[in-house]
């Protein structure tokens, strides 16, 4: 059953088309990953789904309610976790959650219970009386989530909820998202951190220039890339931008990047020989320590579809 149905959505800002005939569906109870480079139209799409932005053309339906006509019905079932830490920093954790939950009509014992549950859910029950500004970045992120989910929304839109958090907070957040999903919430999730999306999402949509580049499960997306493979070359020595540019110009090389003494080169499957690559490295005085071939990953797929590296932009 399609819970979210976006059909030929178009949104323009003056002459700039931020979202161009975008169509996708999200099933009820699904974690739906939303990927795209900066400026791809992700945030605009999320704003439309969150009822925060109008659109120029197309149809958007959430839980059977049509936007913008039945906007208030959509708002009632929606939980928003924005990328910004949207909190009242002078208020305590409890006051923040209480405030945002009460916007959805909760009051009295039901409100208190919902607030307690949300704080416990994100591991902040012991910090309930702490002011938001006194919390660590990770705690603020978790509180940001608690504020978006306390009222028990059916659909939760999470825009980069783990930006800038430590590993422990990231694990806590990831765990809580899975639990929310297990309890029946449908989640639309964006992140610049590819492994998160791979780990969480049932299905993933990749958008670029406001258009849908690909959609499906991880396996389905990987199947889009059948023309390339990745070479992982361990090197001894320092590479630079000039080396990457030289490698990228070699016949059959689609993309090259260097990080932590490992060179990753995406090449055509039909590449007859890797000698030009090795030769270039040796000319630059870089010794090859190891060489391995890797099947396409989601990162490679994203790169192939959008021409951009996701993690580099979001880092």
């Amino acid at each position, binding site marked *: 059953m399609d819970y979210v149905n976006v059909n030929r959505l178009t949104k323009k800002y003056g002459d700039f088309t931020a979202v161009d005939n975008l169509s996708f569906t999200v099933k009820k109870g699904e974690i739906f990953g939303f990927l795209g480079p900066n400026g791809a139209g992700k945030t605009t799409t999320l*704003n439309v789904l*969150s*009822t*925060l*932005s*109008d659109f120029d053309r197309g149809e958007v339906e959430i839980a059977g309610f049509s936007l913008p006509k039945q906007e*208030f019905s959509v*708002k*009632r079932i*929606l939980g*928003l976790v*924005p*990328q*910004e*830490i*949207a*909190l*009242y920093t*002078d*208020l305590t954790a409890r*006051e923040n959650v209480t*405030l*945002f939950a*009460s*916007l*959805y*009509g909760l009051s009295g014992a039901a409100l208190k219970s919902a607030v307690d549950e949300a704080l416990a859910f994100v591991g902040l029950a012991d910090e309930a009386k702490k*002011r938001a500004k006194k919390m660590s970045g990770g705690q603020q992120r978790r509180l940001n989530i608690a*504020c*978006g989910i306390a009222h028990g929304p059916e659909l939760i839109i999470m825009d980069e909820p783990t930006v800038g958090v430590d590993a422990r907070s990231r694990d806590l957040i990831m765990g809580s998202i899975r639990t929310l999903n297990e309890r029946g919430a449908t989640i639309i999730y964006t992140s610049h951190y590819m492994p998160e999306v791979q780990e969480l999402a049932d299905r993933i949509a990749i958008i670029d220039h406001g258009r849908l580049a690909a959609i499906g499960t991880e396996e389905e997306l990987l199947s889009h890339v059948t023309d390339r493979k990745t070479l992982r070359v361990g090197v001894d020595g320092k590479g630079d931008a000039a080396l990457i540019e030289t490698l990228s110009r070699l016949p059959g090389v689609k993309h090259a990047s260097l990080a932590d003494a490992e060179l990753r080169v995406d090449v055509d499957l039909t590449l007859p020989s890797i000698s030009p690559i090795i030769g270039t490295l040796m000319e630059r005085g870089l010794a090859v320590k190891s060489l391995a071939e890797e099947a396409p990953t989601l990162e490679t797929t994203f790169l192939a579809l959008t021409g951009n590296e996701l993690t580099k932009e979001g880092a």
Partner: protein
Amino acid sequence: MFIQAKSYILTYFRDKSAMFFSLLFPALLCFVLGTMLQSLDNPDAPLGEIRIAAAAEGGGDAFRTGTASFLDALRDSTDVTIVGSAADADVDSVKAAVDAGEADAGLVFSEGKISVYEGADIVKSGAVRFMAQSFSRQYDAIAVAVANDPQRMEEILAVADQSHDGLTEKQVSGVNRSMMDFYAVAMIVMIAFMGNGIGGASTFFSMRRDGSLRRITASPKSRVQIFFGYMLGGLVQSAAQAAVVMLCAYFLYGASYADRWQDNVLLFCFFLLLGAAVSGMCNLFGLFVRFNPYTPLMAIFWAMLYMSGTFNKDIAIPGIKLPPAAAQEAAFDLTVFGRDEKTLAAMAVCAAIIAASGILGSLLLKRKAVVL
């Protein structure tokens, strides 16, 4: 609506800088000004006894008669003492009495002219000068009338012999005023503009910046409720500010404001509405602009307050009454003269501004692009 108001109020009362600038700073200002001004002018305080050394030399019958009548009237006054006998004194003895501090001022009546010798106390000397000027003008008028029709002299003398009950002294206002009465009102007006203005403008601007406005507008609350909720918060802030300054000035320095408690309640309500109106307009401004409104608003408000005489009691541009000046005038009209017409009119204007800001703000907030 009360949820937004509550969040605004909680945030306001916990924000140390907001507390400092809108509550502690005015209270400190009250303390500093009150201490500084305590010993200074008290415009309605009695001058006390005024001692006048007088000498009457020569002049015609009419002048002598008028002079004697004037000095008798001064002697009858409980606040004035005529030092020595005017008939026996001369210019030198008058000057000597003033120089020696035996008299606050000297008056010499000679040949139709009055000379005033001023002593060290400029306020008392000034009072004597005004008395003499008043007499001189009156005498000139009589002299002209008599010169044209000598028969009228008898009529005038007959009138002069009658009792002088024509002048009835009335207290203009029942309480004495101190400088704190002026500054407390001026300070509340200042805080209404600075505190509510900056607070109001920052509300939506900072909420948009930190994303909480997105979260709030994504909720099922109507945008009218959201905007009016924050305006309600501004009203509470306004009440707190006015109460702090009014009570501080009243209890610490005896500022009395209006005579009647009903007028003081009206004054408080006026300040409340004034702050809320400024807050509402600035809410709107903060929602409308994309830059930090703090700096331009500070500059505008300081300039307006300065030109309205809030700091120096002078209106910078004669004929142009800026909002702070109009607010101060309305408040002073109520406190000094007990007249509430201007205050009620100003309250009506504030109420209209609050309503208009609320409607415009709600409409503006309905434009989704404003939130993002």
